[in-house]
């Protein structure tokens, strides 16, 4: 058991951002989710049992659910293409890589929630199975089964995609972000 060190949290930022993207399915929503998660975690001193990253995963998941509940009570707004800001100049200059990352994280976001959380915790955040089980309030065997099936779906989807290049993909007009 140890007191959470605010200074050490920044080392988890990149992984947590990718995890948030996998949960939300969009880059901009992921930014909002991560910021809100950090704000809540840092609002008062915390004592952590186990790893910091597992603690952050738990906080991220709780904040994600809380945002979903709040969003469902808010009126939906539709963004216009004209209102879109320029891309972050530090996001990398390799379009191929950026597209692939967006596709993979977007595919995870489409998985059933239990599968999505399991693959995010273990494969994106790098938690052990035991840490993931604790962070997600599930048994280790359950996490492993969900992870197996989540990986199976992702592998099959990307295997299928590589064979069906040329078919068009659908986007959502209600999406605010340009993930």
């Amino acid at each position, binding site marked *: 058991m140890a007191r959470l*060190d605010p200074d050490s949290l920044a080392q988890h930022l990149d992984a947590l951002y990718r995890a948030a993207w996998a949960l939300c399915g969009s880059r901009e929503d992921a930014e909002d989710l991560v910021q809100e998660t950090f704000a809540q975690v840092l609002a008062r001193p915390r004592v952590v049992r186990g790893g910091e990253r597992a603690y952050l995963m738990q906080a991220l998941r709780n904040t994600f659910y809380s945002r979903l509940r709040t969003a469902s009570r808010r009126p939906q707004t539709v963004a216009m293409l004209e209102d879109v800001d320029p891309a972050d100049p530090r996001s990398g200059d390799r379009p191929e890589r950026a597209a692939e990352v967006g596709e993979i994280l977007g595919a995870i976001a489409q998985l059933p929630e239990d599968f999505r959380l399991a693959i995010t915790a273990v494969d994106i955040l790098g938690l052990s199975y035991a840490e993931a089980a604790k962070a997600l309030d599930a048994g280790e065997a359950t996490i492993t089964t969900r992870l197996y099936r989540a990986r*199976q779906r992702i592998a099959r989807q990307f295997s299928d995609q590589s064979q069906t290049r040329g078919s068009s993909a659908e986007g959502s007009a209600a999406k605010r972000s340009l993930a």
Partner: protein
Amino acid sequence: MTEQPQFSEAELARLADGSLPAPRRSELRAQVSDSPELAAALAEQERAVSLMRALDEPAPAALRARIDELTGSATARRPRPRRRWTLGVSASVALAIAIAAVIVLATGGTAAPTLPQTVRLTLAAATMPAPSVDAADRGRLALSNGGIAFPNASGFQTTGARIDTVAGRRIATVFYGGPDRTRVGYAIVSGAPLRVSGGGLVQWYDGVRFTGKHLGSTSVLTWQQSGHTCVLAGRSVTGRTLMALAEASQPESS
């Protein structure tokens, strides 16, 4: 009726990511080598793991700044604990190597140009001078691809062009200097529409479906016109700028 699997999903999942204890790992590897079904299941797990481990998208600078602010103010309120060393650098190097491998595999042998390949052309250097204005139509340039002429748009200065062939398709690109000294590349890819995946913001204007995306540091707008794919892209470019140029490209309604 589906047959029950003759293996433990949990063990295969652990074998794929390296967390299965060594003695059991050898036993399972031996079983895998004797069973095409097990080998296929393991290959799927390993493929997914390699895709996940190759993800290296960093948090955007603006988010990092906001988090630094939050952690800074939290630190100021508390006694400073001892800093711990991490393996961040070596992990980053390993990830970079993994990513390079995945990208090499992913980009090899595609049958049609991809959107990222086209975007790369819009960011490349011009190889030809700027096309002249079409004498018969001052709103168009004397360069076209697939029957679509590039626009001579108000507020945009043409600076150059290039013609490429990717996967057997002709891609013509014109470069524009936009408002606020931004550079926008406009590529027209002839032939069947390119696949546009990975979400994005979709909007319809006058029956045309526009998709806006960010690919890394590049803003991208794409749509179909006369059966061909138009791609506008640039760094530090707003959606408004891209839409203005896209609008100038649309055929005049009769």
